[in-house]
């Protein structure tokens, strides 16, 4: 068994080497496929971080009546955090709000003057709520519409922002869906092209396959070297596509960051290097193996 395995591996490597040009063609196709799939993956990362960035910019503020005790607000906050839809809740006390207001308007003498003439703080305490995704604000607003909150809440600025939020949420949804569809189509395309290239290499060997069968080789013995060849294609292609991707990202990532602040693909690439590498090798091996396996089937019936 071990001898057989060694023979099959040796034969696979040998025919890989002796069919150099065919191997080169197959490897370039497989690496192109891997490259395309990885790039699409990275674009997806980019889109996601873009969407997260956008969503990070929206929030709703809930203002409480001036006489609401702080415990009540904190209690509300505690309840709010329990919701799945809520990503973060920031409490801004009346004092804090005043301080922020003063900081912001310190150059405006008229405003500062009129503020001083008041004997109490006119600003209300507020909770700034961020949802996981833009479409969830509706739910959060409903939470506040429950009876017990009606009394302490002065207003929610959701209604003012509603139009913007819904539009944003529909845009992000469309981007996600379109991205996914494009990704799937391109991935399928890459797989089909690779499959056909490998089928071509096996087609060119159909005579040999017949000879092997006539000499008394079992299907296993005929098939395995081709699968070994497929695996070699996959591994080499993965390494090549990584070698292309690395300098490309190094060059492009800063430019992308300039357009879309908050995204750094190169950093993502570096931190996930091993995962990506193994993913690429896995894609390569899977592509090579499955294509060889399927393509050789019809020639085995001698």
């Amino acid at each position: 068994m071990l001898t057989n395995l060694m023979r099959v591996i040796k034969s696979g490597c040998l025919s890989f080497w002796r069919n150099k040009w065919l191997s080169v063609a197959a490897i370039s196709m497989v690496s192109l496929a891997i490259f395309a799939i990885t790039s699409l993956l990275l674009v997806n990362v980019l889109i996601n971080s873009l969407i997260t960035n956008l969503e990070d910019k929206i929030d709703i503020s809930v203002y409480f009546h001036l006489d609401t005790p702080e415990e009540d607000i904190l209690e509300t906050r505690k309840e709010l955090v329990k919701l799945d839809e809520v990503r973060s809740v920031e409490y801004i006390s009346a004092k804090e709000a005043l301080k922020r207001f003063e900081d912001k308007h310190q150059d405006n003498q008229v405003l500062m003057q009129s503020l001083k003439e008041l004997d109490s703080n006119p600003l209300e305490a507020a909770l700034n709520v961020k949802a996981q995704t833009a479409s969830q604000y509706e739910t959060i607003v409903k939470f506040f519409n429950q009876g017990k909150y009606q009394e302490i809440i002065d207003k929610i600025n959701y209604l003012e922002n509603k139009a913007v939020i819904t539009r944003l949420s529909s845009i992000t949804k469309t981007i996600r869906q379109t991205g996914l569809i494009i990704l799937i189509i391109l991935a399928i395309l890459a797989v089909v092209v690779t499959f056909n290239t490998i089928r071509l290499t096996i087609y060119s060997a159909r005579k040999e396959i017949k000879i092997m069968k006539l000499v008394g080789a079992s299907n296993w013995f005929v098939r395995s070297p081709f699968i070994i060849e497929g695996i070699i294609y996959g591994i080499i292609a993965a390494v090549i596509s990584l070698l292309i991707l690395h300098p490309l990202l190094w060059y492009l990532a800063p430019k992308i960051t300039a357009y879309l602040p908050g995204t750094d693909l190169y950093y993502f690439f570096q931190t996930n290097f091993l995962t990506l590498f193994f993913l690429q090798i896995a894609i390569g091996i899977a592509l090579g193996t499955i294509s060889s396996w399927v393509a050789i089937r019809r020639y085995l019936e001698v």
Partner: protein
Amino acid sequence: MIKFKQISKIYSSDCRALEDINLIINEKEFVSVAGRSGAGKSTLIRLLIREELPTQGQVFWHNHDISQIQDRDLPFWRRQIGMVFQDFQLLPYKTAYENIAFAMEVGARTNQDIERDVPQLLKLVNLSERADHFPDQLSGGEKQRVAIARALAHRPKILIADEPTGNLDGLHTWEIIRLLIKINELGTTVILATHDREIINGLERRVIILEKGRVIRDEEGGRYIL
């Protein structure tokens, strides 16, 4: 012992390759199967190596019905037979040595066996110096000798040669035929399909002549007369 019992092979109603064939080929016999192209020689051989199944009748090898062999066991049957083809059918990306070794590898023979037998086989066909040449670098006669060495690698009981000299000139033709005779004398049944009159007349062994899918003559020391 090989026995064809009431064999017919019909591809379509107007293409009857073999009809009502009854033959017995004994062990260690040297049999020539002759006839024009299309007479059914190749079909007869394809039935024997079970590349095809008969439409009617049975082929026996020592009372085993060959058509009953499971696909899974087919490789084992093929290893009982050595095949030599008109177009050599060598693996183009393997050297002469590797072509012969391959036949032994598929039979799960040990590396020691291979290292011992292949040089011997190459010596038998007189190609020891050409061991590392690829088929492209060999002449027609040399290629056919490699093919014969490969066919013998399993130490088969039967050697089937389907027009082995069809692509060769006169000198190489007799080289091959003499080799086949030598192999037969070493104890292997040889079945030679050919349409070459000179070979058959020169052999003076049993000749079976096919025409339009039927046996029209079967005699010892026969001559090729149509």
